[in-house]
Protein backbone atom coordinates (compact mmCIF):
# COMPACT_ATOMS: atom_id res chain seq x y z
CA UNK A 1 0.00 0.00 0.00
CA UNK A 2 2.52 2.52 -1.23
CA UNK A 3 0.02 5.36 -1.50
CA UNK A 4 -0.87 5.08 2.15
CA UNK A 5 2.75 5.12 3.18
CA UNK A 6 3.37 8.24 1.15
CA UNK A 7 0.52 9.88 2.96
CA UNK A 8 1.84 8.86 6.33
CA UNK A 9 5.12 10.44 5.36
CA UNK A 10 3.43 13.62 4.21
CA UNK A 11 1.43 13.84 7.38
CA UNK A 12 4.56 13.57 9.49
CA UNK A 13 6.48 16.04 7.34
CA UNK A 14 3.84 18.69 7.72
CA UNK A 15 4.57 21.17 10.47
CA UNK A 16 1.69 20.89 12.92
CA UNK A 17 -0.73 23.36 11.32
CA UNK A 18 -2.59 24.03 14.51
CA UNK A 19 -0.32 24.84 17.44
CA UNK A 20 -1.43 23.30 20.69
CA UNK A 21 -1.13 25.66 23.60
CA UNK A 22 -2.10 23.22 26.31
CA UNK A 23 -2.89 25.95 28.78
CA UNK A 24 -6.02 27.01 26.92
CA UNK A 25 -7.52 23.58 26.77
CA UNK A 26 -8.82 21.75 29.80
CA UNK A 27 -7.88 18.37 28.38
CA UNK A 28 -4.22 18.70 27.36
CA UNK A 29 -3.43 17.54 23.87
CA UNK A 30 -7.02 16.90 22.86
CA UNK A 31 -7.90 17.49 19.21
CA UNK A 32 -11.50 18.23 20.03
CA UNK A 33 -12.62 19.46 23.42
CA UNK A 34 -16.32 20.18 23.98
CA UNK A 35 -16.98 21.79 27.31
CA UNK A 36 -20.57 22.09 28.43
CA UNK A 37 -21.62 23.09 24.92
CA UNK A 38 -25.21 24.11 24.26
CA UNK A 39 -26.87 25.13 21.06
CA UNK A 40 -30.35 26.53 21.01
CA UNK A 41 -31.78 27.51 17.65
CA UNK A 42 -33.71 30.77 17.26
CA UNK A 43 -36.82 28.70 16.55
CA UNK A 44 -36.63 27.41 20.12
CA UNK A 45 -35.41 23.92 19.20
CA UNK A 46 -32.56 22.56 21.24
CA UNK A 47 -29.62 21.23 19.25
CA UNK A 48 -27.26 20.41 22.10
CA UNK A 49 -27.52 20.74 25.86
CA UNK A 50 -24.45 20.71 28.09
CA UNK A 51 -22.40 18.37 25.95
CA UNK A 52 -18.83 17.63 27.08
CA UNK A 53 -16.31 15.23 25.59
CA UNK A 54 -12.70 15.19 24.48
CA UNK A 55 -11.16 13.39 21.52
CA UNK A 56 -7.45 12.66 21.44
CA UNK A 57 -5.21 12.75 18.35
CA UNK A 58 -5.36 9.65 16.19
CA UNK A 59 -8.68 8.45 17.56
CA UNK A 60 -11.50 7.05 15.44
CA UNK A 61 -14.76 8.11 17.02
CA UNK A 62 -18.37 7.41 16.12
CA UNK A 63 -21.00 9.93 16.98
CA UNK A 64 -24.31 8.07 17.03
CA UNK A 65 -27.89 8.85 17.84
CA UNK A 66 -31.32 9.09 16.25
CA UNK A 67 -32.20 11.88 13.85
CA UNK A 68 -32.41 15.17 15.69
CA UNK A 69 -30.19 13.99 18.53
CA UNK A 70 -27.59 16.68 17.79
CA UNK A 71 -25.04 14.86 15.61
CA UNK A 72 -25.25 17.27 12.73
CA UNK A 73 -25.31 20.23 15.08
CA UNK A 74 -22.06 18.97 16.59
CA UNK A 75 -20.52 18.70 13.13
CA UNK A 76 -21.69 22.14 12.08
CA UNK A 77 -20.30 23.61 15.27
CA UNK A 78 -16.95 21.97 14.56
CA UNK A 79 -16.59 23.65 11.16
CA UNK A 80 -17.88 26.89 12.60
CA UNK A 81 -20.92 26.95 10.38
CA UNK A 82 -22.92 27.95 13.47
CA UNK A 83 -21.97 29.28 16.86
CA UNK A 84 -22.79 27.59 20.19
CA UNK A 85 -25.13 29.45 22.52
CA UNK A 86 -23.22 28.21 25.55
CA UNK A 87 -19.97 26.51 26.52
CA UNK A 88 -16.66 26.44 24.68
CA UNK A 89 -15.26 24.33 21.85
CA UNK A 90 -11.52 23.90 21.46
CA UNK A 91 -10.09 22.32 18.34
CA UNK A 92 -6.37 21.56 18.66
CA UNK A 93 -6.28 23.87 21.64
CA UNK A 94 -7.83 26.80 19.82
CA UNK A 95 -11.08 28.34 21.05
CA UNK A 96 -13.42 28.40 18.05
CA UNK A 97 -15.32 31.40 19.41
CA UNK A 98 -12.12 33.44 19.14
CA UNK A 99 -11.59 32.81 15.43
CA UNK A 100 -12.80 35.92 13.58
CA UNK A 101 -15.12 35.45 10.62
CA UNK A 102 -12.35 36.51 8.27
CA UNK A 103 -10.10 33.67 9.48
CA UNK A 104 -12.73 30.93 9.28
CA UNK A 105 -11.68 29.76 5.77
CA UNK A 106 -8.13 29.27 7.01
CA UNK A 107 -9.40 27.26 9.96
CA UNK A 108 -11.54 25.07 7.69
CA UNK A 109 -8.55 24.12 5.59
CA UNK A 110 -7.26 22.22 8.61
CA UNK A 111 -10.48 20.25 8.98
CA UNK A 112 -11.50 17.79 6.29
CA UNK A 113 -15.26 17.48 5.93
CA UNK A 114 -17.31 14.71 4.29
CA UNK A 115 -21.06 15.18 3.86
CA UNK A 116 -23.98 12.83 3.41
CA UNK A 117 -24.88 14.54 0.13
CA UNK A 118 -21.20 14.62 -0.99
CA UNK A 119 -21.35 18.37 -1.80
CA UNK A 120 -19.24 18.08 -4.93
CA UNK A 121 -19.00 20.90 -7.46
CA UNK A 122 -21.35 19.61 -10.18
CA UNK A 123 -19.67 21.13 -13.20
CA UNK A 124 -16.15 20.00 -12.42
CA UNK A 125 -14.54 16.67 -13.06
CA UNK A 126 -13.39 14.39 -10.26
CA UNK A 127 -9.86 15.65 -10.71
CA UNK A 128 -10.91 19.31 -10.63
CA UNK A 129 -13.08 18.78 -7.58
CA UNK A 130 -10.16 17.46 -5.60
CA UNK A 131 -7.79 20.03 -7.09
CA UNK A 132 -10.10 22.84 -5.96
CA UNK A 133 -9.32 22.11 -2.31
CA UNK A 134 -5.66 22.68 -3.12
CA UNK A 135 -6.25 25.73 -5.30
CA UNK A 136 -8.14 27.32 -2.42
CA UNK A 137 -5.04 27.13 -0.26
CA UNK A 138 -2.92 28.63 -3.03
CA UNK A 139 -1.39 25.31 -4.01
CA UNK A 140 0.86 25.51 -7.07
CA UNK A 141 0.11 23.61 -10.28
CA UNK A 142 3.00 21.27 -9.55
CA UNK A 143 1.63 20.61 -6.11
CA UNK A 144 -1.74 19.73 -7.64
CA UNK A 145 -0.26 17.51 -10.35
CA UNK A 146 1.70 15.76 -7.64
CA UNK A 147 -0.95 15.24 -4.96
CA UNK A 148 -4.27 14.81 -6.73
CA UNK A 149 -3.55 11.63 -8.73
CA UNK A 150 -2.00 10.18 -5.60
CA UNK A 151 -5.02 10.76 -3.40
CA UNK A 152 -7.32 9.50 -6.16
CA UNK A 153 -5.30 6.30 -6.33
CA UNK A 154 -5.66 5.96 -2.56
CA UNK A 155 -9.42 6.30 -2.86
CA UNK A 156 -9.60 4.00 -5.88
CA UNK A 157 -10.74 6.58 -8.39
CA UNK A 158 -7.79 6.55 -10.79
CA UNK A 159 -9.98 5.49 -13.71
CA UNK A 160 -12.68 8.12 -13.11
CA UNK A 161 -10.40 11.16 -13.18
CA UNK A 162 -12.22 13.00 -15.92
CA UNK A 163 -15.79 12.00 -15.09
CA UNK A 164 -18.25 14.52 -13.78
CA UNK A 165 -20.01 13.79 -10.47
CA UNK A 166 -23.31 12.96 -12.20
CA UNK A 167 -21.55 10.15 -14.06
CA UNK A 168 -20.50 8.44 -10.82
CA UNK A 169 -22.30 6.10 -8.45
CA UNK A 170 -23.09 7.29 -4.93
CA UNK A 171 -20.18 5.37 -3.48
CA UNK A 172 -17.78 6.82 -6.00
CA UNK A 173 -19.05 10.35 -5.35
CA UNK A 174 -18.50 9.83 -1.66
CA UNK A 175 -14.97 8.64 -2.38
CA UNK A 176 -14.33 11.87 -4.28
CA UNK A 177 -15.68 13.79 -1.32
CA UNK A 178 -13.32 11.89 1.01
CA UNK A 179 -10.42 12.48 -1.36
CA UNK A 180 -11.14 16.19 -1.40
CA UNK A 181 -11.40 16.32 2.37
CA UNK A 182 -8.10 14.52 2.78
CA UNK A 183 -5.96 16.00 -0.02
CA UNK A 184 -4.66 18.77 2.28
CA UNK A 185 -3.78 16.12 4.90
CA UNK A 186 -5.76 17.78 7.65
CA UNK A 187 -5.11 16.61 11.19
CA UNK A 188 -8.86 16.20 11.67
CA UNK A 189 -11.45 14.63 9.37
CA UNK A 190 -15.18 14.99 10.03
CA UNK A 191 -17.76 12.83 8.27
CA UNK A 192 -21.45 13.62 8.66
CA UNK A 193 -23.47 10.49 7.78
CA UNK A 194 -20.97 9.48 5.08
CA UNK A 195 -22.84 6.24 4.39
CA UNK A 196 -26.35 7.65 4.82
CA UNK A 197 -27.20 7.28 1.13
CA UNK A 198 -25.22 4.13 0.40
CA UNK A 199 -25.90 0.39 0.41
CA UNK A 200 -24.15 -1.78 3.05
CA UNK A 201 -21.41 -3.11 0.76
CA UNK A 202 -20.51 0.36 -0.52
CA UNK A 203 -20.66 1.64 3.05
CA UNK A 204 -18.01 -0.84 4.10
CA UNK A 205 -15.80 0.46 1.30
CA UNK A 206 -16.16 4.03 2.55
CA UNK A 207 -15.55 2.97 6.15
CA UNK A 208 -12.48 1.08 5.00
CA UNK A 209 -11.24 4.25 3.36
CA UNK A 210 -11.82 6.29 6.52
CA UNK A 211 -10.11 3.60 8.52
CA UNK A 212 -7.10 3.76 6.21
CA UNK A 213 -6.99 7.54 6.58
CA UNK A 214 -7.18 7.14 10.36
CA UNK A 215 -4.17 4.81 10.16
CA UNK A 216 -2.09 7.68 8.75
CA UNK A 217 -2.59 9.46 12.05
CA UNK A 218 -5.55 11.64 11.18
CA UNK A 219 -8.23 11.94 13.81
CA UNK A 220 -11.54 10.81 12.32
CA UNK A 221 -14.99 11.62 13.67
CA UNK A 222 -17.94 9.94 11.97
CA UNK A 223 -21.54 10.86 12.71
CA UNK A 224 -23.90 8.04 11.78
CA UNK A 225 -27.11 6.30 12.76
CA UNK A 226 -25.94 2.99 11.26
CA UNK A 227 -25.68 1.08 14.56
CA UNK A 228 -24.81 -2.21 12.90
CA UNK A 229 -21.78 -0.67 11.23
CA UNK A 230 -20.68 0.94 14.48
CA UNK A 231 -20.91 -2.35 16.34
CA UNK A 232 -18.76 -4.07 13.75
CA UNK A 233 -16.10 -1.37 13.71
CA UNK A 234 -15.45 -1.64 17.47
CA UNK A 235 -14.26 1.89 17.94
CA UNK A 236 -15.04 4.56 20.47
CA UNK A 237 -18.72 5.53 20.42
CA UNK A 238 -20.28 8.72 21.70
CA UNK A 239 -24.05 8.48 21.71
CA UNK A 240 -26.25 11.53 21.72
CA UNK A 241 -29.91 11.65 22.59
CA UNK A 242 -32.01 14.81 22.62
CA UNK A 243 -28.87 16.91 22.63
CA UNK A 244 -27.17 15.12 25.56
CA UNK A 245 -24.35 12.61 25.72
CA UNK A 246 -25.89 9.35 26.96
CA UNK A 247 -22.98 6.97 26.25
CA UNK A 248 -19.25 7.40 25.71
CA UNK A 249 -17.39 4.13 25.63
CA UNK A 250 -14.15 2.76 24.31
CA UNK A 251 -15.06 -0.48 22.58
CA UNK A 252 -13.63 -3.41 24.56
CA UNK A 253 -12.32 -5.53 21.73
CA UNK A 254 -10.38 -2.68 20.23
CA UNK A 255 -8.27 -4.19 17.48
CA UNK A 256 -5.91 -1.29 16.93
CA UNK A 257 -3.20 -3.29 15.23
CA UNK A 258 -5.56 -4.58 12.56
CA UNK A 259 -4.56 -3.99 8.93
CA UNK A 260 -7.07 -2.52 6.52
CA UNK A 261 -7.48 -5.90 4.82
CA UNK A 262 -8.20 -7.73 8.07
CA UNK A 263 -10.55 -4.93 9.00
CA UNK A 264 -12.53 -5.40 5.78
CA UNK A 265 -12.72 -9.16 6.22
CA UNK A 266 -14.04 -8.78 9.75
CA UNK A 267 -16.57 -6.16 8.61
CA UNK A 268 -17.98 -8.48 5.98
CA UNK A 269 -17.92 -11.63 8.12
CA UNK A 270 -19.76 -10.53 11.19
Amino acid at each position, binding site marked *: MAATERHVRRRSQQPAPLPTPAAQSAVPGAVIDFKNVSKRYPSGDTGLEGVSFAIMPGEFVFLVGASGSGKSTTMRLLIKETEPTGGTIHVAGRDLAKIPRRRVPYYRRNVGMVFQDYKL*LPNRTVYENVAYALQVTGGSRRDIRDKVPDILRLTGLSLKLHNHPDQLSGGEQQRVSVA*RAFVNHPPLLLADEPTGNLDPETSIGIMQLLYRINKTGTTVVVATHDVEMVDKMRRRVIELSHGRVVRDEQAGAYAARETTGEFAIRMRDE
Partner: protein
Amino acid sequence: MKLGFFLREALRALKRNAVPSFAAMATVLVTVLILGVFIPVVQATTGAANEVRGRVIANVYLVRDADEKDVARVRNLLENDTPHVAGVEFVSKDQAYAEQRKRNPAAYEELGQFNPLPHTFRITPDDPDNIGKVRNALAPLAPGGGRTVIDGSIDEVTNREEDTNKILSVTRAVKLTTALLAGLLMIASVLLIANTIRLSLFARRREVEVMKLVGATDWFIRWPFVMEGMLVGFLGGVLAVLVLAVFKVAVVDPLAAEYALIAAPETMSFPLLVALLLGAAVAVSAAGSGLSLRRFLRV
Protein backbone atom coordinates in the same frame (compact mmCIF):
# COMPACT_ATOMS: atom_id res chain seq x y z
CA MET B 1 -0.68 32.84 -11.59
CA LYS B 2 -3.57 33.93 -9.38
CA LEU B 3 -4.95 36.23 -12.06
CA GLY B 4 -4.68 33.49 -14.65
CA PHE B 5 -6.49 31.09 -12.37
CA PHE B 6 -9.34 33.53 -11.71
CA LEU B 7 -9.65 34.31 -15.39
CA ARG B 8 -9.77 30.62 -16.28
CA GLU B 9 -12.43 30.10 -13.63
CA ALA B 10 -14.45 33.01 -15.00
CA LEU B 11 -14.24 31.65 -18.55
CA ARG B 12 -15.23 28.20 -17.39
CA ALA B 13 -18.25 29.63 -15.59
CA LEU B 14 -19.22 31.56 -18.72
CA LYS B 15 -19.01 28.43 -20.81
CA ARG B 16 -20.88 26.33 -18.27
CA ASN B 17 -23.65 28.87 -17.71
CA ALA B 18 -24.04 29.96 -21.29
CA VAL B 19 -27.75 30.75 -21.10
CA PRO B 20 -27.79 32.98 -17.99
CA SER B 21 -24.61 34.64 -19.17
CA PHE B 22 -26.22 35.32 -22.51
CA ALA B 23 -29.26 36.78 -20.77
CA ALA B 24 -27.05 39.07 -18.70
CA MET B 25 -25.14 40.09 -21.81
CA ALA B 26 -28.34 40.83 -23.71
CA THR B 27 -29.52 42.97 -20.81
CA VAL B 28 -26.31 44.96 -20.85
CA LEU B 29 -26.52 45.27 -24.62
CA VAL B 30 -30.05 46.65 -24.62
CA THR B 31 -29.37 49.00 -21.73
CA VAL B 32 -26.20 50.38 -23.25
CA LEU B 33 -27.95 50.77 -26.56
CA ILE B 34 -30.76 52.79 -25.00
CA LEU B 35 -28.31 54.91 -23.02
CA GLY B 36 -26.17 55.39 -26.12
CA VAL B 37 -29.11 56.80 -28.02
CA PHE B 38 -30.54 58.70 -25.10
CA ILE B 39 -27.42 60.54 -23.93
CA PRO B 40 -26.88 62.42 -27.23
CA VAL B 41 -30.61 63.09 -27.48
CA VAL B 42 -30.64 64.62 -24.00
CA GLN B 43 -27.58 66.66 -24.81
CA ALA B 44 -29.06 67.90 -28.07
CA THR B 45 -32.32 68.81 -26.37
CA THR B 46 -30.56 70.65 -23.57
CA GLY B 47 -28.32 72.36 -26.10
CA ALA B 48 -31.33 73.48 -28.13
CA ALA B 49 -33.08 74.67 -25.00
CA ASN B 50 -30.02 76.64 -23.95
CA GLU B 51 -29.78 78.20 -27.38
CA VAL B 52 -33.36 79.38 -27.14
CA ARG B 53 -32.72 80.72 -23.67
CA GLY B 54 -29.74 82.61 -25.06
CA ARG B 55 -32.16 84.70 -27.07
CA VAL B 56 -33.72 86.20 -23.97
CA ILE B 57 -32.80 89.93 -24.03
CA ALA B 58 -34.05 93.21 -22.68
CA ASN B 59 -34.33 96.31 -24.84
CA VAL B 60 -33.48 99.68 -23.40
CA TYR B 61 -34.98 102.41 -25.58
CA LEU B 62 -33.56 105.88 -25.17
CA VAL B 63 -35.56 109.03 -25.54
CA ARG B 64 -35.78 110.31 -29.09
CA ASP B 65 -33.61 113.38 -28.56
CA ALA B 66 -30.76 111.62 -26.76
CA ASP B 67 -27.36 112.75 -28.02
CA GLU B 68 -23.90 111.17 -28.10
CA LYS B 69 -23.20 112.17 -24.51
CA ASP B 70 -26.41 110.56 -23.25
CA VAL B 71 -25.62 107.37 -25.14
CA ALA B 72 -22.13 107.20 -23.62
CA ARG B 73 -23.53 107.82 -20.15
CA VAL B 74 -26.19 105.12 -20.43
CA ARG B 75 -23.72 102.65 -21.91
CA ASN B 76 -21.45 103.27 -18.94
CA LEU B 77 -24.39 102.85 -16.59
CA LEU B 78 -25.39 99.55 -18.17
CA GLU B 79 -21.94 98.12 -18.44
CA ASN B 80 -20.64 99.06 -15.02
CA ASP B 81 -23.44 99.82 -12.61
CA THR B 82 -26.13 97.27 -13.42
CA PRO B 83 -26.02 93.78 -11.92
CA HIS B 84 -26.53 90.55 -13.94
CA VAL B 85 -25.61 92.13 -17.28
CA ALA B 86 -23.52 89.90 -19.51
CA GLY B 87 -23.53 91.80 -22.78
CA VAL B 88 -24.56 95.16 -24.08
CA GLU B 89 -25.17 95.78 -27.74
CA PHE B 90 -25.82 99.26 -29.06
CA VAL B 91 -28.16 99.69 -31.97
CA SER B 92 -28.19 103.27 -33.21
CA LYS B 93 -31.18 105.04 -34.73
CA ASP B 94 -29.75 104.53 -38.21
CA GLN B 95 -28.98 100.88 -37.76
CA ALA B 96 -32.47 100.26 -36.42
CA TYR B 97 -33.95 102.13 -39.33
CA ALA B 98 -31.98 100.07 -41.84
CA GLU B 99 -32.96 96.86 -40.11
CA GLN B 100 -36.63 97.62 -40.02
CA ARG B 101 -36.65 98.92 -43.54
CA LYS B 102 -35.18 95.69 -44.80
CA ARG B 103 -37.79 93.74 -42.93
CA ASN B 104 -40.77 95.77 -44.07
CA PRO B 105 -39.86 97.92 -47.10
CA ALA B 106 -43.44 98.90 -47.94
CA ALA B 107 -44.14 100.54 -44.58
CA TYR B 108 -40.91 102.53 -44.63
CA GLU B 109 -41.55 103.70 -48.18
CA GLU B 110 -44.26 105.94 -46.77
CA LEU B 111 -42.01 107.42 -44.11
CA GLY B 112 -39.40 108.52 -46.53
CA GLN B 113 -36.29 109.76 -44.76
CA PHE B 114 -38.10 110.35 -41.47
CA ASN B 115 -36.73 108.06 -38.73
CA PRO B 116 -39.09 107.48 -35.80
CA LEU B 117 -36.85 104.93 -34.11
CA PRO B 118 -34.84 105.65 -30.93
CA HIS B 119 -31.34 104.53 -30.01
CA THR B 120 -31.54 101.08 -28.40
CA PHE B 121 -29.39 98.98 -26.13
CA ARG B 122 -29.90 95.21 -26.32
CA ILE B 123 -28.93 93.67 -23.01
CA THR B 124 -28.09 89.98 -22.57
CA PRO B 125 -28.39 88.84 -18.94
CA ASP B 126 -25.78 86.56 -17.37
CA ASP B 127 -28.53 84.00 -16.78
CA PRO B 128 -31.85 84.10 -18.65
CA ASP B 129 -33.64 83.70 -15.31
CA ASN B 130 -32.19 87.04 -14.17
CA ILE B 131 -33.83 89.07 -16.90
CA GLY B 132 -36.48 90.37 -14.49
CA LYS B 133 -33.83 91.62 -12.09
CA VAL B 134 -32.08 93.54 -14.83
CA ARG B 135 -35.31 95.19 -15.81
CA ASN B 136 -36.15 96.09 -12.21
CA ALA B 137 -32.71 97.58 -11.71
CA LEU B 138 -33.08 99.84 -14.72
CA ALA B 139 -36.72 100.67 -14.31
CA PRO B 140 -37.92 100.12 -10.74
CA LEU B 141 -41.62 99.76 -10.13
CA ALA B 142 -43.13 103.04 -9.08
CA PRO B 143 -45.33 103.23 -5.97
CA GLY B 144 -48.34 104.26 -7.98
CA GLY B 145 -48.00 101.44 -10.51
CA GLY B 146 -46.10 101.72 -13.76
CA ARG B 147 -42.39 102.21 -13.83
CA THR B 148 -39.90 104.99 -13.38
CA VAL B 149 -36.49 104.99 -15.05
CA ILE B 150 -33.21 105.55 -13.32
CA ASP B 151 -31.80 107.78 -16.03
CA GLY B 152 -33.50 110.70 -17.73
CA SER B 153 -32.46 109.63 -21.19
CA ILE B 154 -33.99 106.15 -20.89
CA ASP B 155 -37.46 106.14 -22.30
CA GLU B 156 -38.53 102.59 -21.64
CA VAL B 157 -37.17 99.15 -20.72
CA THR B 158 -38.91 96.10 -22.19
CA ASN B 159 -38.05 92.47 -22.06
CA ARG B 160 -40.76 91.08 -24.29
CA GLU B 161 -42.21 89.60 -21.18
CA GLU B 162 -44.58 87.10 -22.71
CA ASP B 163 -41.97 85.57 -25.02
CA THR B 164 -39.40 85.47 -22.28
CA ASN B 165 -41.65 83.75 -19.78
CA LYS B 166 -42.76 81.21 -22.33
CA ILE B 167 -39.21 80.39 -23.35
CA LEU B 168 -38.07 80.12 -19.77
CA SER B 169 -40.86 77.83 -18.63
CA VAL B 170 -40.72 75.61 -21.70
CA THR B 171 -36.97 75.13 -21.59
CA ARG B 172 -37.11 74.49 -17.87
CA ALA B 173 -39.74 71.81 -18.42
CA VAL B 174 -37.72 70.23 -21.21
CA LYS B 175 -34.58 70.14 -19.09
CA LEU B 176 -36.38 68.73 -16.08
CA THR B 177 -38.13 66.05 -18.11
CA THR B 178 -34.99 64.87 -19.82
CA ALA B 179 -33.05 64.84 -16.56
CA LEU B 180 -35.84 62.84 -14.91
CA LEU B 181 -35.98 60.39 -17.81
CA ALA B 182 -32.22 59.98 -17.80
CA GLY B 183 -32.26 59.31 -14.05
CA LEU B 184 -35.05 56.76 -14.33
CA LEU B 185 -33.31 55.04 -17.20
CA MET B 186 -30.08 54.82 -15.22
CA ILE B 187 -31.86 53.30 -12.22
CA ALA B 188 -33.74 50.87 -14.46
CA SER B 189 -30.54 49.74 -16.16
CA VAL B 190 -28.70 49.15 -12.90
CA LEU B 191 -31.64 47.22 -11.43
CA LEU B 192 -32.09 45.18 -14.58
CA ILE B 193 -28.44 44.21 -14.79
CA ALA B 194 -28.20 43.49 -11.06
CA ASN B 195 -31.29 41.32 -11.22
CA THR B 196 -30.09 39.30 -14.18
CA ILE B 197 -26.73 38.71 -12.53
CA ARG B 198 -28.47 37.80 -9.31
CA LEU B 199 -30.53 35.17 -11.09
CA SER B 200 -27.50 33.57 -12.66
CA LEU B 201 -25.76 33.59 -9.27
CA PHE B 202 -28.75 32.11 -7.51
CA ALA B 203 -28.44 29.05 -9.72
CA ARG B 204 -24.91 28.64 -8.43
CA ARG B 205 -25.40 29.33 -4.74
CA ARG B 206 -24.80 25.66 -3.86
CA GLU B 207 -21.48 25.85 -5.59
CA VAL B 208 -20.53 28.90 -3.54
CA GLU B 209 -21.57 27.12 -0.35
CA VAL B 210 -19.36 24.13 -1.17
CA MET B 211 -16.45 26.42 -1.93
CA LYS B 212 -16.83 28.08 1.44
CA LEU B 213 -16.94 24.73 3.22
CA VAL B 214 -13.74 23.63 1.53
CA GLY B 215 -12.05 26.70 3.00
CA ALA B 216 -12.11 29.26 0.19
CA THR B 217 -11.90 32.87 1.30
CA ASP B 218 -14.63 35.29 0.20
CA TRP B 219 -12.44 37.02 -2.33
CA PHE B 220 -11.15 33.76 -3.72
CA ILE B 221 -14.75 32.93 -4.61
CA ARG B 222 -15.66 36.45 -5.58
CA TRP B 223 -12.91 37.31 -8.05
CA PRO B 224 -14.00 34.84 -10.75
CA PHE B 225 -17.56 36.13 -10.44
CA VAL B 226 -16.43 39.74 -10.70
CA MET B 227 -14.30 38.93 -13.73
CA GLU B 228 -17.18 37.05 -15.27
CA GLY B 229 -19.35 40.12 -14.74
CA MET B 230 -16.69 42.31 -16.33
CA LEU B 231 -16.46 40.01 -19.34
CA VAL B 232 -20.23 39.93 -19.74
CA GLY B 233 -20.44 43.70 -19.38
CA PHE B 234 -17.61 44.23 -21.82
CA LEU B 235 -19.08 41.89 -24.45
CA GLY B 236 -22.54 43.42 -24.12
CA GLY B 237 -21.05 46.91 -24.24
CA VAL B 238 -18.94 46.20 -27.32
CA LEU B 239 -21.90 44.74 -29.19
CA ALA B 240 -24.07 47.72 -28.28
CA VAL B 241 -21.36 50.15 -29.36
CA LEU B 242 -21.03 48.32 -32.67
CA VAL B 243 -24.76 48.68 -33.26
CA LEU B 244 -24.55 52.35 -32.30
CA ALA B 245 -21.62 52.90 -34.67
CA VAL B 246 -23.50 51.29 -37.54
CA PHE B 247 -26.54 53.44 -36.74
CA LYS B 248 -24.39 56.57 -36.61
CA VAL B 249 -22.65 55.89 -39.90
CA ALA B 250 -25.76 54.70 -41.73
CA VAL B 251 -28.39 57.12 -40.43
CA VAL B 252 -27.14 60.07 -38.39
CA ASP B 253 -24.12 61.11 -40.42
CA PRO B 254 -25.94 61.33 -43.80
CA LEU B 255 -28.77 63.24 -42.14
CA ALA B 256 -26.34 65.61 -40.47
CA ALA B 257 -24.59 66.19 -43.77
CA GLU B 258 -27.86 67.02 -45.48
CA TYR B 259 -29.44 69.12 -42.79
CA ALA B 260 -26.91 71.19 -40.92
CA LEU B 261 -29.58 71.74 -38.30
CA ILE B 262 -29.17 68.30 -36.73
CA ALA B 263 -25.47 68.75 -36.19
CA ALA B 264 -25.91 72.17 -34.68
CA PRO B 265 -26.52 71.35 -31.01
CA GLU B 266 -23.36 70.50 -29.12
CA THR B 267 -23.18 66.76 -28.41
CA MET B 268 -20.47 64.58 -26.93
CA SER B 269 -17.92 63.27 -29.41
CA PHE B 270 -18.53 59.66 -30.42
CA PRO B 271 -15.28 58.16 -29.04
CA LEU B 272 -15.92 59.76 -25.65
CA LEU B 273 -19.46 58.41 -25.64
CA VAL B 274 -18.17 54.93 -26.50
CA ALA B 275 -15.56 55.01 -23.76
CA LEU B 276 -18.13 56.20 -21.24
CA LEU B 277 -20.68 53.52 -22.16
CA LEU B 278 -18.12 50.70 -22.12
CA GLY B 279 -16.72 51.84 -18.80
CA ALA B 280 -20.19 52.04 -17.28
CA ALA B 281 -21.19 48.62 -18.64
CA VAL B 282 -18.08 46.91 -17.24
CA ALA B 283 -18.23 48.71 -13.90
CA VAL B 284 -21.95 48.10 -13.32
CA SER B 285 -21.68 44.42 -14.26
CA ALA B 286 -18.62 43.82 -12.10
CA ALA B 287 -20.10 45.64 -9.13
CA GLY B 288 -23.41 43.86 -9.68
CA SER B 289 -21.76 40.43 -9.58
CA GLY B 290 -19.57 41.23 -6.61
CA LEU B 291 -22.39 42.72 -4.55
CA SER B 292 -25.03 40.14 -5.47
CA LEU B 293 -22.68 37.42 -4.26
CA ARG B 294 -22.60 38.86 -0.75
CA ARG B 295 -25.65 37.12 0.60
CA PHE B 296 -24.52 33.74 -0.70
CA LEU B 297 -21.16 34.10 0.99
CA ARG B 298 -22.69 34.05 4.47
CA VAL B 299 -21.96 30.41 5.23
